[in-house]
């Protein structure tokens, strides 16, 4: 017997085994820790070595990013902690650039760290511990949701079997269990947003960066997505950084919990 994967609106319950669940189209199991993943104790030790005191989730120290004459980020300084962190600003404010700098995806000036890890030098380790839901569509043509999420899990270092189990679990959480074998190309905008959320969750991250997760959604889908997001800290144990230019999205999520 294995623990049924966590899902919004449901209390944890005991479900079927992995094979039985998948054959029956039911919920798959959700392993608590992947192979080779660092334990919380090890993570704490790494954090202690890195900074000697408990690090903030995110620390910015004169973080700057310029594209030629354009200043995208101007000497940002902050220490940020919390369970649901809204990153709010108009289009072009620098929100997506900040997230990409934090993930170590683009070079920058100054210093930034996530979970005590330097974005400049330990980006890969950060991405092992942070889930990222990008603003743009990032799908491979012809792939189903299960295939994409499994692939994302493998890219994070999970063995294929475990990646597939986690993909089923993440898609179940995101409410896509019935459509998970269909090609993403045929999905609605709302379903595509849910797939992006699922692929960000597949490696059981400690923090989730969500870049404009409600873009293109109608009001009801937007509310559904925000409910899903707001429950993540409690259900999945991860902190949320929610980037949006929509005030109701940020305040709605932050005030849900």
């Amino acid at each position, binding site marked *: 017997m294995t623990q049924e994967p966590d899902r919004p609106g449901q209390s944890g319950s005991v479900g079927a085994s992995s094979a039985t669940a998948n054959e029956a189209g039911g919920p798959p199991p959700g392993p608590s820790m992947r192979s080779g993943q660092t334990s919380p104790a090890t993570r704490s030790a790494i954090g202690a070595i890195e900074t000697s005191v408990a690090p903030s989730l995110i620390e910015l120290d004169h973080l700057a990013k310029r594209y030629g004459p354009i200043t995208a980020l101007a000497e940002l300084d902050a220490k940020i902690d919390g369970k649901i962190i809204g990153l709010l*600003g108009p289009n072009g404010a620098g929100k997506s650039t900040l997230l990409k700098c934090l993930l170590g995806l683009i070079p920058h000036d100054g210093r930034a760290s996530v979970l005590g890890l330097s974005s400049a030098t330990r980006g890969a380790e950060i991405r092992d511990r942070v889930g990222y839901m990008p603003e743009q569509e990032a799908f491979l043509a012809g792939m189903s949701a299960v295939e994409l999420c499994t692939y994302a899990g493998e890219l994070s270092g999970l063995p294929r079997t475990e990646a597939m189990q986690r993909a089923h679990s993440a898609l179940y959480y995101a409410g896509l269990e019935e459509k998970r074998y269909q090609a993403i190309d045929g999905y609605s905008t709302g379903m595509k947003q849910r797939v992006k959320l699922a692929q960000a969750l597949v490696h059981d991250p400690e923090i989730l960066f969500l870049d404009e997760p409600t873009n293109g959604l109608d009001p009801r889908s937007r509310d559904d997505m925000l409910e899903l997001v707001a429950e993540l800290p409690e259900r999945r144990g991860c902190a949320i950084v929610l980037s949006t230019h929509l005030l109701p999205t940020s305040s709605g999520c932050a005030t849900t919990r």
Partner: protein
Amino acid sequence: MIMHHGKLRFVGSIDELRGARGADSELTIEVKADAARFAEVLGAVGATCKVTSPVVVSVDLPANATTELVFRTAKEIGVQVRGIAVRRESIEAAFLRVIGDAA
């Protein structure tokens, strides 16, 4: 967090955002009657007042003043204070205030 033009404009909670104007000196006061006269007298001692209904006054206290000024003034002119609350901005107004000077 609120960003604008590549800069961090605000870091804090929503409550802090809405109360970031030094809100303890910005009050909404409900009186039994005669809000206009109450506002006039408070204005004479340095407060900035706006009468929003016959029984409600929006008050910005002068520097270093406390609610003691409100109650003392009310007692002096015989106005009955029925309610007093720290005035809070809407999230929308607070957001616009934070980014407004650079918008």
